[in-house]
């Protein structure tokens, strides 16, 4: 079996990056909503966001295939078995982690900063832009890093929705799996495993850096 190591790494990085970018506005919106507003169904929404975290990724993939597959409500987008399917899978598996991190990042901002800003004449949207968002930013960056790392390691949903097409949808994880089935694939598999370890470690280090920065910005201990 022919496996291009560089291709696999690049496909994973691109899918994780685009998936995280797509998830950013959704995570910020839902995270802020859950952190700052009370509304009917809030607890239900918060609980529903946990479901994809505990659902077997293959099941998530199956559900995504039902949504995006031929005959599905979003079938016209022609997503399955293209690179876009890797992005969609990355988006859905990383979103819950991102929303939970964003919620924590917004909750860590003392709402009295926003109240002081209002008494100084700042309307709600301007306060979000000038106070809430900059204060939550390191925490949000930590969340984005975590989401990116999760997307990078994605396997189950991708294999169902995107298949395992060389140069198109064969991500790092899928390539390792393919190589394990190949008699002389050990060397290439080792390279990919090493790449995976390096990328994951970098993500976790970056996450820790952002988390510390968040505490520093909010003048919290530790």
């Amino acid at each position, binding site marked *: 079996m022919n496996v291009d190591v560089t291709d696999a790494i690049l496909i994973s990085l691109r899918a994780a990056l685009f998936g995280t970018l797509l998830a950013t506005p959704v995570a910020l919106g839902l995270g802020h909503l859950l952190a700052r507003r009370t509304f009917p169904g809030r607890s239900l929404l918060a609980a529903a966001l946990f479901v994809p975290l505990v659902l077997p990724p293959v099941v998530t993939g199956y559900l995504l295939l039902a949504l995006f597959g031929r005959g599905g409500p979003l079938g016209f987008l022609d997503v399955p078995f293209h690179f876009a399917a890797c992005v969609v899978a990355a988006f859905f598996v990383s979103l819950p982690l991102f929303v939970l991190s964003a919620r924590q990042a917004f909750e860590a901002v003392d709402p009295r900063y926003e*109240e002081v800003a209002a008494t*100084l004449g*700042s309307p709600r949207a301007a306060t979000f832009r*000038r106070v809430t968002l900059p204060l939550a930013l390191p925490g949000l960056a930590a969340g984005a890093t975590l989401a990116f790392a999760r997307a990078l390691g994605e396997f189950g949903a991708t294999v169902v929705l995107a298949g395992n097409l060389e140069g198109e949808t064969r991500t790092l994880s899928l390539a390792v799996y393919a190589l394990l089935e190949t008699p002389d694939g050990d060397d290439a598999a080792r390279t990919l495993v090493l790449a995976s370890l390096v990328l994951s470690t970098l993500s976790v280090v970056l996450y820790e850096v952002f988390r510390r920065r968040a505490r520093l*910005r909010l003048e919290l201990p530790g």
Partner: protein
Amino acid sequence: MIRFDLQLRIGTRDARLTLDVPATRLAVVGPSGSGKTTLLRALAGLHAATGHVQVGDEVWLDERRNVPTHQRRAAWVPQDALLFPHLDVRANLLFGAPNDDELREVAELLALTSLLDRRPRHLSGGERQRVALGRAVLARPKLLLLDEPFAALPASQRLALAEGLRARCDARGVAVVLASHDRDDVRALAEVRYGLEDGRLVGA
């Protein structure tokens, strides 16, 4: 000039706080937990209340209207200053200011000129309180809500600062509500003093 008649909850009890004689510089004294901070927050529109609030010729609260906080121009100086930690002193001071015309004057009044480029985490408690005062003053408020504003300042600075602040507010027609339990602060800044006891304002 401020007058109000507010029904609100202080902790777990219902309260009615009435200032029947309009005042320009009002001090509210009372023990911790009596509701001084809650009153200031209600005047800013940050704590739910019904009734009537009028500052100058503007009605902020009555049966028909409840002007949102950002349109009230009631600048709040919380006890713990709450400077925006991501902004330096200059940006904090100018946060609500329409322009930087008065920055130098206010920085001099509050002895902040040498601190303009510092971040809040590098300021002492007293410096933070002075920046919070400057930030509120520069927002050109109609009402200044001061919650123990001089608590972290040494006694030697308090009087001069209170007098400077009073002169500035008088010159610009800014009403002041001061919550404090320091007698000297109250004497230096306020013209009328009320006690907050058992959910009522009592003239003193």
